[in-house]
């Protein structure tokens, strides 16, 4: 039985063409791009081509606005720390309650050191209130950081509009576009976005390579010093093989952008409607009308996510969950809690995230596999009685602590 991979928001498989583009850099193209001899020269040429490919994917005006980093997290940290250090007169950050931990954990840490952090709340569909946002913007705002697309639900934020609003008060605007890049059109040159994070392994490039887009004329302080690489903005010998791989992946992502928004979207919708038609007490989380084309996050009430994943895995199907148990934490995902999803449902959220490599046959197999798994676990659940939740019945389950 061929395994089915529906966890592409976690990471993606390297495209074979990406691997091919990388291989020479492990053998004949091993030189250091900074060297004067021909060993280095060709590598420098390869980096330049990759930079242009990423520039095109992001619609950046100049290729020098692309800085290669080691991952999305490094890009996020660099952006926020730079904004604070470059503008000592501003000490406030505005972000959202549903950001990736790469942003939230950093903000929490900075808060302990005296930075003021505002976290925008979201409604039950995961949408921001732009009036609340506007009221928090001030001349003390150093940077606004809002994700382009949410990794759990795929919900899109109006980052271009938010960036324009930040510009009015002179604040920098950063967006974590790790999930959005390659799935929605991005044209940075026509926006007011100052910084953007991208991660290679989310778009079929290898792990360990990321990008920070830095608009020309944005005040900047590097995270890593000690070399002239990336024009002194990110020291350290370039990860040339991965950069070449990312260049190829960016090129392919741009080519497949329309495919993502037609065919991948069609398969995602097929999966979602197929499951919801068969499973009662299940619903889509986030904003279904405004989200990434590849993501379906479904909450199955009265069952727990890890148990669902284990049973899916038994049939070779890979997905992920926002339940507490999958992460070893005590509470379900912060995104589900921010949206006010009840605990009975939040623990049973399953994220299916597709890629351009998924087929209709695979989707049909998943649609067939999911309903019996949910039924089986509900049969075990004290919150479930025969064919309905137990809450309305006499003797409903009320445990001793909660």
């Amino acid at each position, binding site marked *: 039985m061929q395994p089915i991979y529906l966890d592409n928001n976690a990471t993606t498989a390297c495209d074979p063409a990406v691997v091919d583009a990388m291989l020479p850099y492990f053998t004949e193209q091993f030189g250091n791009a900074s060297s004067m001899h021909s060993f280095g020269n060709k590598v420098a040429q390869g980096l330049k081509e990759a930079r242009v490919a990423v520039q095109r994917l992001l619609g950046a005006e100049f290729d020098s606005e692309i800085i290669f980093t080691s991952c999305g997290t490094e890009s996020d940290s660099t952006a926020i720390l730079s904004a604070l250090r470059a503008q000592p007169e501003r000490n406030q950050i505005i972000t959202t309650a549903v950001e990736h931990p790469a942003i939230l954990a950093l903000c929490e840490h900075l808060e302990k050191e005296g930075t003021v952090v505002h976290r925008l709340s979201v409604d039950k569909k995961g949408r921001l209130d732009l009036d609340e946002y506007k009221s928090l913007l001030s001349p003390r705002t150093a940077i606004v950081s809002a994700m382009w697309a949410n990794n759990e639900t795929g919900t899109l934020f109006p980052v271009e509009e938010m960036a324009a609003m930040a510009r009015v008060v002179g604040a920098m605007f950063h967006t974590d576009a790790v999930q959005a890049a390659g799935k929605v059109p991005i044209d940075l040159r026509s926006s007011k976005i100052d910084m953007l994070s991208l991660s290679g392994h989310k778009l079929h490039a290898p792990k360990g390579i990321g990008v920070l887009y830095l608009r020309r004329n944005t005040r900047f302080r590097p995270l890593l010093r000690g070399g002239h690489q990336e024009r002194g903005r990110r020291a350290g010998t370039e990860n040339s093989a991965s950069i070449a791989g990312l260049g190829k992946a960016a090129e392919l992502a741009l080519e497949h952008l329309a495919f993502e928004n037609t065919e991948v979207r069609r398969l995602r919708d097929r999966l979602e409607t197929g499951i919801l038609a068969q499973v009662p007490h299940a619903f889509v989380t986030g904003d279904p009308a405004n989200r990434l084309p590849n993501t379906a996050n479904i909450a199955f009430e*009265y*069952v*727990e*996510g*890890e*148990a669902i994943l*284990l*049973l899916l*895995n*038994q049939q070779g199907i890979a997905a992920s969950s926002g*339940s*507490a*148990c*999958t992460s*070893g*934490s*005590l*509470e*379900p995902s912060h995104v589900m809690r921010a949206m006010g999803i009840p*605990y*009975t449902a939040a*623990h049973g959220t399953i994220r299916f995230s597709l890629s351009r490599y998924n087929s209709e046959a695979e989707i049909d197999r998943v649609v067939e596999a999911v309903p019996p798994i949910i039924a089986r676990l509900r*049969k*075990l*659940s*004290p*919150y479930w009685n025969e064919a309905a939740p137990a809450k309305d019945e006499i003797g409903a*389950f*009320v*445990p*001793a*602590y*909660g």
Partner: protein
Amino acid sequence: MWDYTEKVREHFFNPRNAGPLEGANAVGDVGSIQCGDALRLMLKVNPEDERILEAHFQTFGCGSAIASSSALTEMVKGMTLDEALQVSNQQIADYLDGLPPEKMHCSVMGREALHAAIADYRGETWVDDHEEGAMVCKCFAVDSALIEEVVRANNLTTVEQVTHYTKAGGGCCSCHEGIEEILANVSAERCTAPMPPAAIPVTEAPAAAKPRLTNFQRMRRIEETIEAIRPMLQRDHGDIEVVEIDGKNIYVNLKGACQGCMMEQATLSGIQAQLVDALGEFVQLLPAAMLAMPGRR
């Protein structure tokens, strides 16, 4: 993916004794939907010899929660209630050839359900003393609730001490930042303000012999006494203000560092003692928050 043992997988994929039990005469419900674990344990107990004839479970939870429940039902079948009470959560985990440290609470939940069911059978009320925090030390499975409790109880101030008391931090050391954070939080809560020495000398005459104060004089006296104490609280970045005087009840607000301090009660009773001395009558010092709780006193 969790590193589950074969036995855990086996009990998860083929749970024993799952589903409701007809004629159960001992039922224990524990867990919380918030943490994502809840378990109903149903036992059929023979009243003659208190032996467990049958055991079933229903569980909302992850793989190890379901496996622990299944294992528990297998283990207790045939035991007397007294024997079953001896089953520890470690035994449940051992039955499954071990659980990952983050999942040990699943076996704890099993043991608690057992105690709750037996209490139900005996007509007793089972009280849960369950407190659980986020996993801090993964090497020795120590959570934040335990570390906090031990730090408070023993006035610990260093990571080394925490390691000696709980083993937390004694392995790979990667949780030391987390332990330091707990230490910092607890010490911030602990107000070390020394109680001021009696600001007003105790008069020789017995209290009963004092002339009765008018309402105005009494109010002034209370204010003067509080004013004398304030500088000492302020030195520790705290403060106090009188909000209301209602007969023998004096409502005050503790401010600054005193607010929410672990020693709040001690601070209040120290000040109260001085007021009793100054006024020559019994008064009670209460936090102003109690004004909003008419039912409390």
